[in-house]
């Protein structure tokens, strides 16, 4: 047995599902523990933040950071993890592309505070106090809170990242792939992949999907349907059935567990490296199949608008997991909208 490596897990703006995903290695967790000591993980071990601060720089072999960067605490610990770990992995959709917390970029700090600390029905806040980063009580005790940022960032917006493991959360198979990668590396059997690699495929989900109707087959959809309204055919391609499926704009490698469970893909693996923007890519795919017919010439631009307006909430559907990594990143306020 070669040297034993060390592993740290740290969460940012995370639902902690990613910690559970690591535990989801189930019996294989022992394989992991055979080659690695988990030296820091607030979810799994009784540790304090200072324990991590006190560790020497680069003393941890591999760090998994999951969750987005939403406040100054997330950013601070992203930087500490970068300093302490030789290899830093953005683990899960939130660290990779912002994930579900990244959807907060449709709003901003001011609006979020207004909603949460003022407007909701159950809020009782007559003095309208909003979170402050510092507060001193009558006896001079100073209390501090991290700063809530105006927008959500991804891990690589704030630190240098070595590898990305996409998905929300990474599946058992994906974890096994990383485990084997690390194991082979520890045992000197192979090198780690080139820096910046997204540990998954470079094809789209459709390329590996058992429902793929086949290259060259033209799909035309008249009416878009929502998964909440229909019982989908368990074998036919979702898009062919008019149900929005992000497969054409999503990276393969998850093993399509959703498709297998008769749920369309929502795109948690993010786009392949051939595209800059998952939404732009999905938009193209929809535009090529929606209501193309013989009497196209008769259609006015208003007819087209009507046709495409069947798609409710394109931003939410296209960027469910990737808004902070999209080209436009966040919602702005234009004049006269």
């Amino acid at each position, binding site marked *: 047995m070669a040297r034993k490596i060390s592993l740290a897990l740290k969460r940012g703006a995370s639902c902690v599902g990613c910690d559970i995903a690591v535990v989801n290695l189930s019996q294989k967790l022992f394989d992991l523990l055979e080659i690695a000591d988990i030296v820091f993980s607030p979810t799994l071990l009784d540790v304090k933040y200072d324990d991590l601060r006190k560790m020497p720089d680069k003393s941890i072999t591999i760090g998994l950071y999951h969750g987005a960067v939403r406040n100054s605490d997330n950013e601070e610990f992203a930087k500490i993890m970068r300093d302490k770990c030789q290899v830093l992995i953005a683990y899960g959709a939130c660290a990779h592309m912002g994930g579900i917390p990244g959807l907060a970029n449709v709003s901003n700090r001011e609006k979020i505070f207004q909603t949460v600390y003022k407007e909701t029905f159950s809020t009782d806040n007559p003095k309208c106090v909003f979170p402050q980063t510092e507060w001193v009580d009558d006896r001079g005790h100073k209390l501090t809170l991290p700063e809530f940022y105006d927008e959500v960032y991804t891990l690589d*917006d704030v630190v240098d990242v070595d590898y990305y493991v996409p998905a929300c959360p990474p599946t058992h198979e994906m974890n096994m792939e990383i485990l084997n990668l690390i194991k082979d590396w520890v045992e000197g059997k192979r090198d780690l992949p080139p820096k910046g690699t997204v540990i998954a495929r470079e094809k789209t989900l459709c390329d590996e999907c058992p429902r793929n109707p086949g290259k060259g087959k033209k799909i035309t959809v008249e009416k878009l349907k929502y998964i909440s309204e229909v019982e989908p055919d368990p074998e036919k391609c979702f898009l062919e059935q008019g149900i929005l499926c992000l497969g054409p704009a999503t990276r393969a490698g998850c093993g399509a567990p959703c498709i297998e469970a008769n749920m369309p893909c929502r795109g948690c693996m993010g786009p392949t490296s051939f595209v*800059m923007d998952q939404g732009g*890519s999905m938009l193209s795919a929809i535009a090529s199949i929606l209501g193309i017919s013989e009497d196209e010439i008769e259609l006015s*631009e208003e007819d087209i608008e009507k046709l495409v307006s069947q798609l409710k909430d*394109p931003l939410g559907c296209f960027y469910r997991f990737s808004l902070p990594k999209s*080209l436009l990143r966040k*919602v702005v306020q234009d004049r006269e909208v």
Partner: protein
Amino acid sequence: MSEENGKLNILVFTCNWCAYAGADLAGVSRLQMPTEFRQIRTMCSARVDPEFILYAFRNGADGVMVAGCHPGDCHYIGGNYRTRRRMALLKMLLQQFGLNPRRLRLEWVSAGEGQKFARVVSEFIEEIRKLGPSPYRKQGAKHGQENITCPEKRG
């Protein structure tokens, strides 16, 4: 793209077979039109990937026009049918991003419509002038966000 105030960043994509020829005609006919736009020729309007438009807005475009052949006239038969759906969807998307959807405009211009090209471009520039600079221009480069580059190879 230019960050100077008062100077607009306007992009006009023209397809090779109709709109570009229309623009050319407008030029050789010496028609009057504002000069504050940059034109990019693509083989077909369908070559204008939605990503190009999002990329343009990210990098400070104040308005983007896509001009192609009239329905039924596309050199590649159905390219513009895809274009019109993309543009309609993009407008919905841009609106959700908080941009005024009038910053994006689709026009059909045939090779003989030099007059129309001059008119729609003038109208568009006037419209964008009223709207002013895009709010995405102010989106700063906090946390090294400016580093997106166009992927070279495409699937």
